[in-house]
């Protein structure tokens, strides 16, 4: 039983990481109906920036917010430079652009930082603490706390501020929003910036667990896809719930049923299962189309 609870706790920690990246995917999907295949690579690149700052002596707790700020600016710049010129293009064009972007960022990271895996130290120790008879590592608990704070912050931004209101308006009804004075094109850029920053959180959280190298996020993004699809690809709340479910499920199934090697297959099974049985996910809106 104790081991089971520990597996659940570490599943929740992985879930927080998946949820952050899934939320980044949802933010961009909501803004432009597009799955950003470069989201994981953007997070990986941001993590390298954090790593570089820390290895130059910057304190972790300063490097972390600084990296999120830089990731935000990077996301805005990518939208302005790469996405804006094809903003009105068919979705397939945009998908190809994000795939190209993923390859580009991956290559740039390899060129700038090399392919040798780097040990990314966490300020939170791997020691465990006894909570009601179950043991959880400080690292898992800190990942849960940080993910939780970020997700709540994004929720408050979207639901409680005027900026969040205009972001949501622009995402759902660009034409009607424009007529109310919302600068829709800038909202898209801000959406990319936010997504980039939220995604960076997942990269920085996962780096101490995996090793930091350009391909670090390539499995994480699959889990994030599974989380986003499970939650309903257009629902921020769904991304969070989906992330936690995927994290816990994969951990438990990996530990007790199929073994660690097949954990990724579990994520793929979730994606396919959801798409076949409940394509709108847990919280997604039914897709309506005029014919």
């Amino acid at each position, binding site marked *: 039983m104790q081991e089971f609870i520990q597996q659940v706790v570490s599943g929740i920690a992985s879930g927080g990481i998946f949820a952050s990246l899934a939320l980044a995917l949802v933010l961009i999907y909501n803004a432009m109906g597009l799955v950003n295949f470069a989201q994981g690579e953007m997070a990986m690149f941001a993590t390298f920036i954090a790593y570089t700052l820390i290895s130059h002596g910057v304190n972790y707790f300063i490097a972390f917010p600084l990296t999120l700020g830089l990731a935000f600016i990077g996301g805005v710049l990518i939208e302005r430079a790469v996405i804006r010129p094809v903003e009105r293009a068919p979705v397939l064009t945009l998908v190809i652009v994000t795939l190209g972007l993923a390859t580009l960022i991956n290559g740039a990271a390899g060129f700038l930082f090399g392919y040798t895996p780097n040990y990314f130290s966490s300020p939170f120790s791997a020691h465990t603490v006894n909570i009601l008879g179950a043991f959880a590592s400080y690292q898992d608990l800190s990942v849960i706390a940080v993910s939780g704070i970020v997700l709540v912050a994004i929720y408050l931004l979207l639901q409680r501020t*005027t900026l969040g*209101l*205009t972001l*949501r*308006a622009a995402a*759902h*009804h660009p*034409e*009607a*929003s*424009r*007529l*109310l*004075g*919302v*600068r*829709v094109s800038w909202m898209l850029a801000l959406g990319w910036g936010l997504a980039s920053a939220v995604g960076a959180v997942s990269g920085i959280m996962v780096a101490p667990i995996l090793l930091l190298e350009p391909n670090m996020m390539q499995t994480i993004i699959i889990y994030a896809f599974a989380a986003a699809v499970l939650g309903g690809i257009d629902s921020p709340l769904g991304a969070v719930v989906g992330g936690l479910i995927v994290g816990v499920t994969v951990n438990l199934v990996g530990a007790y049923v199929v073994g660690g090697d097949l954990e990724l297959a579990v994520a793929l099974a979730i994606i396919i299962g959801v798409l076949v049985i409940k394509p709108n996910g847990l919280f997604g809106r039914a897709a309506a189309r005029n014919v």
Partner: protein
Amino acid sequence: MTALLELEEVRCGYGPTSVLHGVSLSVPDGGIVSLLGANGAGKTTTLRAITGGVPWTGEIRFAGQSLRHKPTEDIVRGGIAHVPEGRGILTELTVDENLRLGEHTRKDRAGVRKDYDRVFEYFPVLRERRKLSASTLSGGEQQMLAVGRALLMSPRLMLLDEPSLGLAPIVVRSIFEIIRTINEADHVAVLLVEQNARLALEISTQAYVLEVGRIAVHGASADLKGNDSVRRSYLGY
């Protein structure tokens, strides 16, 4: 009265299809002007051209300033509230959030508060439904929300695209009463696109009739209402 909005020989279309073939009209400051015509005559396109929703040639001036090459966001921030075809309600958001979007660009908080009071005085039902999703409103309530939201933009000119569409006659009456009140009490000029010509001519002082992208008739609303041949040929009642 000086012209607040002027269109001169405005031409535009969608791709290769030309919709407006040189439309000229003007709306006086503080006046109500109706733009009538059959389906497909170009009424909606005329409104969309004014707020930059379709590219156009010719000249459109608002308060003496050309609107050429101005993005929609700047045009509406400059004092034109456009209630589009289908009302433009954001159905994923609550009634309150829709209203907030109307005033989100304004800095005069005291004026905004006064305008909220005014909107709830005109449309008490909106106050009751503030916390509800806008998708739960009836058609008439959505139209009230659209007009109330437009009022919160503190505009000098309102463009209304078929406010009567799909609504029960009694609801239409009350909405038109309030449009008249907004015009008189808040000194907001109105350009009203309507299929319901009888109603539109009652509320407006000037009227234009569009026929396949051209102004076919222009005159005082009272004259058009009294002119049998105009009425039979263009207004269909």
